[in-house]
């Protein structure tokens, strides 16, 4: 209950700050540039491809803005009252989720009213929206976990290094890979596979949103994997936040 109250408190603060206008304007621009498509029509696949790229980008901005609101000395008073550290972090997370989901909702409504994809019904919208929202949550939880108020600099660098290593197959290959000794190549491939594992649900989630192909059981497994990963990231963030010295950035 306190999490919900604190989410409301943070949201109201965010809205009164006027920052939500950025989201509204960005959403309108995306609609008019990419989704209006006068005379061209729009398929469901196209709609989810655009929103599947736009919403994570918006999540980066909104989460950063909410972290900025949370990472202020004003938070000390709230945390000295009944707001626990878990409430505090979840309030920031849910606040972000409401704003980004709201922007996605606006896009969906505008598309439904003015340029509805003929192959998209309500059930299809839900099927595409579920993995998309889980991806928004995943990215937001990851950003909150990597924020200065949750992770110390050394831990942030470590996690970012691991993420970079997971993606390293994109830029370490060919002659560069061959230059490594055999055991080095094997170790790198194993590390990439190991660290790339947690990224699979996010990428597959994007694909699932676009295709909305729930015929195979892997679709549901992937939703479960996305959800589990989201809970793990939030749990890790809350654990780290509750254990560390609380020193908000000064403004």
């Amino acid at each position: 209950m306190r999490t919900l109250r604190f989410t409301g408190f943070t949201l109201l603060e965010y809205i009164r700050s006027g920052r939500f206008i950025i989201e509204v304007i960005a959403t309108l621009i995306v609609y008019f540039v990419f989704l209006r498509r006068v005379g061209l029509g729009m398929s469901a696949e196209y709609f989810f491809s655009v929103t599947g790229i736009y919403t994570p980008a918006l999540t980066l901005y909104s989460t950063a803005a909410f972290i900025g609101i949370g990472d202020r000395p004003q938070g000390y008073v709230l945390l000295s009252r009944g707001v626990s550290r878990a409430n505090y972090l979840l309030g920031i997370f849910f606040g972000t989720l409401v704003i980004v989901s709201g922007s996605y909702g606006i896009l969906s409504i505008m598309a439904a009213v003015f340029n509805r994809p003929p192959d998209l019904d309500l059930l299809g919208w839900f099927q595409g929206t579920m993995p998309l929202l889980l991806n928004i949550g995943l990215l937001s939880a990851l950003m909150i976990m990597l924020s200065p108020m949750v992770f110390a600099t050394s831990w942030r660098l470590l996690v970012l290094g691991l993420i970079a290593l997971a993606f390293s197959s994109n830029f370490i290959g060919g002659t560069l890979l061959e230059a490594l000794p055999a055991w080095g190549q094997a170790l790198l491939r194993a590390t990439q596979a190991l660290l790339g594992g947690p990224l699979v649900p996010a990428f597959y989630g994007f694909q699932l949103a676009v295709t909305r192909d729930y015929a195979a059981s892997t679709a549901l497994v992937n939703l479960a994997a996305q959800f589990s990963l989201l809970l793990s990231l939030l749990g890790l963030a809350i654990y780290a936040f509750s254990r560390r010295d609380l020193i908000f950035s000064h403004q």
Partner: protein
Amino acid sequence: MIEITDLSKSYGSVQVLRNLNLHVATGEIYGLLGPNGAGKSTLLHLMLGFLKPSSGSMCLLGSSNLDSVRPQIGYIPERQRYHTRYTAREYLRFIGEFSGMSGSRLADKVDAELHTVGLANDADRVMGVFSKGMLQRVGVAQALLCDPALLLIDEPTSGLDPSGQRDIIDLLANLRDRGHTVFLCTHYLHEIEHLCDRVGILAGGKLATEAIVRDLRAPGGSVIIEVDAISTELRGTLEAMGRGVTCDLRTVRVRQNTPHIQAMVLRRLLDAGASIIALEPMESPLEQLYTKAVQADTSPQVPEYQASAIDRTTSPLPVNPPPPAPRLPSEGDTLLNELLRRGSEQEPEQEAGNREQETSADRGDP
């Protein structure tokens, strides 16, 4: 109420608090004095659970589980950091809700505390337009909202203008009757003198010394007496009273002041018809205590001039220190009262004289 034992806190290689031991009894108003960076705010944040101690233990309100007692603690932070996009009433309502209050009880309590801090007429204005003093009043109100048993106050007048400082000090002084235990961190000596029962001085991460504030109010140190004019004859008379008494054209300095010497000097001045403009300590006993403690922060010593100024390592304070007793008038005070009485008697006579002169001038009398 507050029991801190061997508390240390380090940030990497920087040790902020070193084996701090501190006891504050229920109902006491304790002031922690120290220069900037001494670790006062760190200590408060440790008490609030924002920071984890490197070693040592803390027991607040009878419990070492800080999370469980936090609802009974009110906290007033320094620098008036509040969510200024809300009105004062909205903000207090949110704080009350976070603390588990609701409905008419919360609404009544919010109204009552807004009235207590003098913001009833500004309750529905956005705090972004508030002055720093008004924001700090909101801070006091939010801390009082849940009737806390313990109030932790961090630099309450930091950044305020003199008028705002006086308002906040008066406001906090009025809270004395509500029976809260108060732990006040500050680097302003006058806040300690006005508000606290007991003072501790934090220097070099340690509690260098403690004292009972009422004892520090006793006459001591040196005083400076300012008068309208001192004749050569009067100057000679005064300086003949002792080596500690020195004069120039308008001031008398009494070094190593005692009630007896002060009374003698004042009587001579009165008898000579001098008008006394001010009598002030050249350096207050608290200031002396503070200066000594800070200068010798590596080897805390008992101040020489105060028997009640106590070094924790040699003579701990009683568990329940006595409540502040009313100050008894000294001989110097009696003379000051006499001065004031004479002044008030002379004023009507002078005014009557002035009026008579003005009337004569109006009539054109010579």
